[in-house]
């Protein structure tokens, strides 16, 4: 239990209403988007300014209290789950878009801005911020920076780190540090912006974000293809990229997800289909038209049962809505669901899909596939309703087998969800030991007392 003085001081800093300490409130900050990680904080603060956060951090450092930053709690790696009680510092009340600069093509936002709200504001100005984690209705900008999130659009546009120009970060000492700036080019010393981008809240609290924007593409087409064989769908992705076309998105959804979506949303998908690919092309009207034509040919040559364009915006929107509901559909299907995040080189996709099938058959756990085929990041979700200890251990072994297979194919442990609690047991096998050592030293520079989101990323930290 935190001492009453600490709670009192927090109330002085942010005001009484923005400090939560009732058991019934604390319980609701004990989880994030994962099904299996929980931990209850001792207090929750909802600051509104950088200065308040600085004061909170000073207090935490003085009293050695762990601080877990939290945005919307949608991450799926256990990142915003407090492991040592302490303070959950939730940024949702810092939700102002401070500036949208149409001529420098930049924006400045507070960390609690919800991605979809930001997108809506940009759309009015005909501007575009591509990183599109499929949790856009919930996730905050701070969370997406801390996780270096990416989504379907990253095939063509890259992930969050490609758009972050500058950050304001409150360090555990309370010092407010500025890194980067608001220029697209910046070659002034070591670049610390990408260090904090993807730092999962372990180095400091991100309080202000300057982002690079691009003009909204003039035209867009959505294509949909149905396959009766998953590996064929995987191979087609490689052949599209091999033909020199880079679509904006190439998403992969398997039979299980198609059926679940259909059950919940009833949008008329063929429930017997083994795979659905959703592809977006964007750019100028002329380019979009010819690329769409060419992709449709490739899809048909590649063995698609159906390959066609969405007839209008409404149909396209429906497909993408179904896609964003896909994860949820998987997560609510069983008691324990682990969405793996391994990523493989894009020319190994069909082999990857085949190997997953083998792993599933051998282990007996169903493996569901959904995700970003265009960048080799198709998430295999392994699930079980069993609470039996042995089954859960076997599940863990299965996850390890998937990871080892991905590494063999030249892939990586996490494409976008981050390490958090969920993947730290495998981290040492995914990274060079020297790199791990360097990372730990960096952590120690900024957070010598290890109060900043402790227990995340590193095993026995």
């Amino acid at each position, binding site marked *: 239990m935190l001492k009453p003085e600490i709670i009192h001081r927090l109330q002085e800093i942010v005001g009484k209403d923005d400090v*939560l300490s*009732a*058991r*019934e*409130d604390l*319980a*609701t*900050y*004990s*989880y*994030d*988007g*994962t*099904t299996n990680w929980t931990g209850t904080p001792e207090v929750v603060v*909802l600051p509104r300014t950088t200065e308040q956060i600085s004061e909170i951090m000073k207090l935490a450092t003085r009293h050695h209290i762990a601080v877990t930053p939290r945005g*919307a*709690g*949608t991450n799926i790696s256990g990142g915003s789950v407090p492991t040592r009680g302490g303070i959950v510092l*939730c940024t*949702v*009340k810092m939700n102002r878009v401070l500036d949208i600069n149409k001529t420098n093509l930049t924006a400045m936002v507070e960390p609690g801005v*919800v991605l*979809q709200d930001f997108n809506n504001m940009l759309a009015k100005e005909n501007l575009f911020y591509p990183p599109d984690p499929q*949790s856009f*209705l*919930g*996730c905050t900008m701070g969370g997406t920076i801390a996780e270096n999130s990416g989504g379907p659009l990253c095939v063509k546009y890259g992930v969050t780190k490609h758009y972050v120009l500058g950050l304001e970060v409150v360090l555990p000492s309370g010092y407010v540090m500025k890194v980067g700036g608001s220029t697209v080019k910046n070659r002034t010393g070591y670049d610390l912006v990408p260090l904090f981008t993807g730092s999962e809240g372990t180095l400091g609290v991100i309080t202000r974000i300057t982002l690079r924007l691009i003009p909204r593409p003039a035209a867009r087409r959505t294509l949909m293809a149905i396959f009766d064989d998953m590996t064929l769908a995987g191979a087609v992705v490689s052949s599209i990229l091999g033909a020199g076309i880079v679509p904006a998105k190439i998403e992969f959804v398997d039979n299980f997800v198609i059926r679940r979506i259909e059950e*919940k949303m009833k949008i008329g998908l063929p429930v017997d289909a083994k795979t659905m690919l959703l592809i977006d092309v964007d750019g100028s009207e002329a380019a979009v038209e010819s690329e769409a034509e060419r992709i449709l040919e490739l899809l048909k040559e590649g063995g698609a049962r159906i390959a066609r364009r969405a007839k209008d915006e409404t149909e396209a929107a429906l497909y993408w809505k179904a896609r*964003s*509901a*896909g*994860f*949820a*559909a998987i*997560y*609510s299907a069983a*008691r324990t*669901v682990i969405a793996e995040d391994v990523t493989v080189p894009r020319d190994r996709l069909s082999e990857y899909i085949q190997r997953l099938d083998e792993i599933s058959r051998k282990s007996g756990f169903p493996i569901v596939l959904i995700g970003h085929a265009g960048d080799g990041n198709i998430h295999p979700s392994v699930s079980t309703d069993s609470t039996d200890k042995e089954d859960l251990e076997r599940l863990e072994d299965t996850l390890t087998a998937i990871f080892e297979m991905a590494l063999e194919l030249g892939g990586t442990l996490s494409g976008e969800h981050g390490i958090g609690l969920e993947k730290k047991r495998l981290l040492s096998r995914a990274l060079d030991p020297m790199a791990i050592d360097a990372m730990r030293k960096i952590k120690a520079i900024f957070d010598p007392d290890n109060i900043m989101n402790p227990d995340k990323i590193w095993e026995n930290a």
Partner: protein
Amino acid sequence: MSRKEFTQISRVARELEQCMKCGFCAYVCPVYQEEKTEASLARGKNELVKLLVSGELEINRELADRLYKCTGCMTCTTNCPARAEIPRIVVAARADIAGEMGMRFPYGLIYRQVLAKRGVMGLALAVASRLQGVLMPRTSGTLRHMPDFVSAFGKGRRIPSVARKFLRRQVPEVTPAAGRRTLRVGYFSGCMNEFVSPEIGRRTIGLLARRGVEVVFPRAQGCCGAAVFLGAGDFETARKMADRNAAAFEGLDYVVTDCATCACALTEYAHFLADTPEREEAYARFSGKVRHVASFLVDVLGAADFRAPALLDGKKVTWHDPCHLNRHLGVREQPRRILESLDGVRYVEMPEADRCCGMGGQFNLLHYELSMKIAKRKSESIEAADADIVVTACPGCQLQLADSASRLDKPQRVMSLMDVIE
């Protein structure tokens, strides 16, 4: 407290497992949008109920307060990728909480929060007086009875002394169809139309009769019970009300009401209140016949032509979707079609027309300031539509919109759908 005592929660146990904590509801939940705390969010409420069932939390004021912070608007469910029916879980939990803490709890809170606070009460009265011309019969001296009205709402009884002078004194038990009779329906008035705005009831009955429908006004009908079981979780009292209503409307082709909340509550009897096979059967039969008047006119009678009274000539109108009508009953297009068919009236759609106005029945009484914050956003939508009149079909919404308009000094008039068609 052991598991088996959560009678109502255990009936929705499967629902409890649906939420996968994606947090998408944060984008749409009107309460969360104002409060920004996890417990105000559908996901958080689901978690609280889960922890209650698992024994990690117990029934107390703190828990109850959080579970009462929900307007029941269903926006979370409609937008939820897992279609988690958290509002139903919340209603079930309120019932078990009421069972444990005793009936005094929610009502006690109303007394404390509303009646005991002169400020809030005074405001209700001030609003009522300003609304007099719109919502209340000029002659009835309604103001005097407002406290009764509010307290009775909380007690879940039929409204006391104000009653009986009103609608049932003004209309016969049977209003014959003009011309050939096509159907014989029962009119369910709801408390607001019965006691506060009987002229709306009269208009509905008259309109139906002119369209060839014989309208029966069963004298035995009572309050729909929405505030009692959906709001307060008092299922026992509500069962008596449901039994009475189901019996009162036996043998009629349809049960038509112009109150969205009543329509919704009446169709929920079987789901929440049926505790015996007999009730299950009786409630299901009754609920199957219930139609909101907008849906009855358009879907059952196939009516497409409506006229507006002269005072609407040249006016711009917009539509506010009551949650109970839109998300609960799926009636969206019908009222719009009716409004669009009016000659000499311009229909404009407001942004976020289907966003909750923040009334939520009891919610408004327990959390008035919060309710008004939600209403403010609605007012902004109405303003953006630049309409002269906002039309809706739920007396609760109507009260809320008018209250909010007067608080914010907005010029728009609020009218019932039945006020604007003839």
